[in-house]
């Protein structure tokens, strides 16, 4: 049997290694409450950014509504779990965000590049205003309080250290799902559609269908992430999903790298860890982010993940070149 080239990227061993490594290192890093919070935040942001990777990295759709999808997922889940279980809340968050993305994506299926970006931005603005005003659904000023903590099979996740395992589990499931896509023809079609839509559709790729599917899937990831944040914190408001986070989601994926699933995880880690590492000059953190982004774009357009991937290849080459220079 011929193995497709994508299989050579060994997704599943890599995911297994990542999960084991995180399971070992995560609790070690979490020596204080604040650090535990950051580790959990990294995992839950990673889920949203992984979704954004599907939309922006794979499908090449400049969507500005991932934070709105997070908010929608969070509020949906908060509303459902008033009477029902946590699991049903998460599932309904997935369904609602996927349907919302499906509707939006269908209406603007022909919009390209910046038009798509701006239309999705408009969706975010409209949605957030409605969420803020619809007080019967959310609560006063768009703030939903008293959201039940996550509970699965009778176990209630109350401590942040407990939540870590839940988030790691969900992230693992999401990674496996994305790995399936990475190994499937969907990835190939999405890349073809992204690189040249006309040529792709002439060779039989349903460009709009592929992009719509990935947009729905990526948004559902955002819904999961938002729902988890809500249950973890017990409170969500429109401020938790504001402009800063929507720029932040972009930043995470671009810093990490748009062309691999690891970029999302690395970028989220950098984004979450940076304010902690810069303690003392937190005021300047957004300047640091911006400069970092500029440097990454200039020096390694593929993001940190691409730089890491290229390292083993680059060093021997540079070495051999130097040897050749010395000899020649």
């Amino acid at each position, binding site marked *: 049997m011929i193995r497709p080239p994508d299989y050579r990227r060994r997704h599943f061993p890599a995911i297994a290694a990542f999960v084991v490594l995180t399971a070992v290192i995560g609790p070690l890093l979490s020596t204080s409450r604040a650090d535990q919070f950051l580790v959990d935040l990294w995992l839950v942001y990673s889920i949203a950014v992984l979704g954004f990777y599907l939309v922006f990295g794979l499908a090449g759709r400049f969507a500005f509504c991932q934070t709105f999808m997070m908010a929608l997922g969070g509020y949906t889940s908060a509303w459902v779990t008033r009477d029902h279980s946590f699991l049903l809340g998460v599932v309904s968050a997935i369904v609602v965000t996927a349907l919302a993305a499906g509707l939006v994506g269908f209406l603007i299926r022909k919009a390209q590049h910046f*038009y798509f970006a701006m239309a999705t931005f408009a969706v975010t603005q*409209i949605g957030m*205003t*409605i969420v803020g005003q619809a007080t019967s659904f959310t609560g006063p000023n768009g703030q939903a309080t008293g959201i039940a903590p996550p509970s699965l099979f009778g176990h209630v996740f109350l401590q942040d250290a407990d939540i870590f395992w839940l988030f790691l589990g969900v992230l693992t499931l999401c990674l496996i799902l994305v790995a399936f896509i990475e190994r499937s023809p969907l990835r190939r079609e999405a890349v073809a559609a992204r690189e040249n839509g006309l040529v792709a559709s002439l060779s039989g790729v349903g460009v709009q269908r592929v992009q719509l599917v990935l947009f729905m899937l990526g948004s559902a990831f955002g819904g999961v992430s938002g729902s988890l944040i809500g249950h973890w914190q017990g409170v969500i408001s429109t401020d938790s999903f504001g402009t800063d986070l929507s*720029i932040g989601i972009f930043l995470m994926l*671009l810093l990490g790298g748009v062309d691999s699933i690891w970029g999302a995880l690395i970028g989220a880690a950098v984004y979450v860890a940076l304010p902690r590492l810069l303690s003392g000059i937190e005021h300047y953190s*957004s300047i640091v982010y911006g400069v970092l*982004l500029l440097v990454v774009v200039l020096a390694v357009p593929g993001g940190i993940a691409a730089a890491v991937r290229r390292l083993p290849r680059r060093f021997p080459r540079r070495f051999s070149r130097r040897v050749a220079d010395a000899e020649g």
Partner: protein
Amino acid sequence: MDKFVALTASGIAYGAVLAVVALGFLVLYKATGVVNFAHGDLVTLGAYLAVWTTTSLGLPTVPGYLAAIALMGLVGVAIERVAYAPLRSRPPMVVVIATLAAAIVIRGIIAVWQGSEPKTLAGPVGNRVVHIAGAAIAEQRLLITGVAAVAVLALLFVFQRTPYGRQVRALAADPEMARLTGVRTRLVAMGAFALSAMLAALAGILIAPLGAVDLNFGFGLMVTAFAAAVLGGFGSLGGVVLGALVIGLIQQLFGGYVLPDYAATFPAIVLFLVIAVRPEGLLNLTRSRL
């Protein structure tokens, strides 16, 4: 009736500011092909600079404003040097990301420099009002409309009648050809960045006295202006001005009469509907005839 007149007046004033924002955005787009995500933050920066020149430096309002606008020209050139010139040969997406980085840096600098407390900018005419058809209209709004109209006309003149405008239009039509016929693209690009930043500052200074200036002040304005630009066909300058007035009037009239709580979403709804129905804009007749 007086309510209608008041709302119409504020709609026109708002639309005029939107036109200035949108034109600043388009000048850069036409000259360089760059969609500048930092434009909104340039609007914010312009307003903050005006606050600084008039309060900290103690300049009178109008010279203070002019100083702020001049400074913003330098800021535009600086952005061109840092975030655009090194990326000239890269794909457009990289340049867009660089403008996003510039936006984040500008935002961070403002936050460090001025803090996150909202500021107010004193207008040159204070809080005086005039009465037209029974409606009290702030003189600032009339001033906005007048200044914006002058700026738009001046810009149209520059585009249609001067060598610089011709070069920009040549670049917009066909960058390769323009370069071959001797258009100095780098100079034109630098000029466009400066002009665009100055227009952003002008818009920020015009509208700031009507409310407060905070970090997100320009960002929302930019999105609304983008709605106007899309409505106007994203290319023709006249169409953009018309689109801006339509959006301004829709926001004020619908917001005033129908759903005040949702006024801010009307431009977003219009933007979304236009993109859903006609992804290339409403007034883009020439291209659809082609």
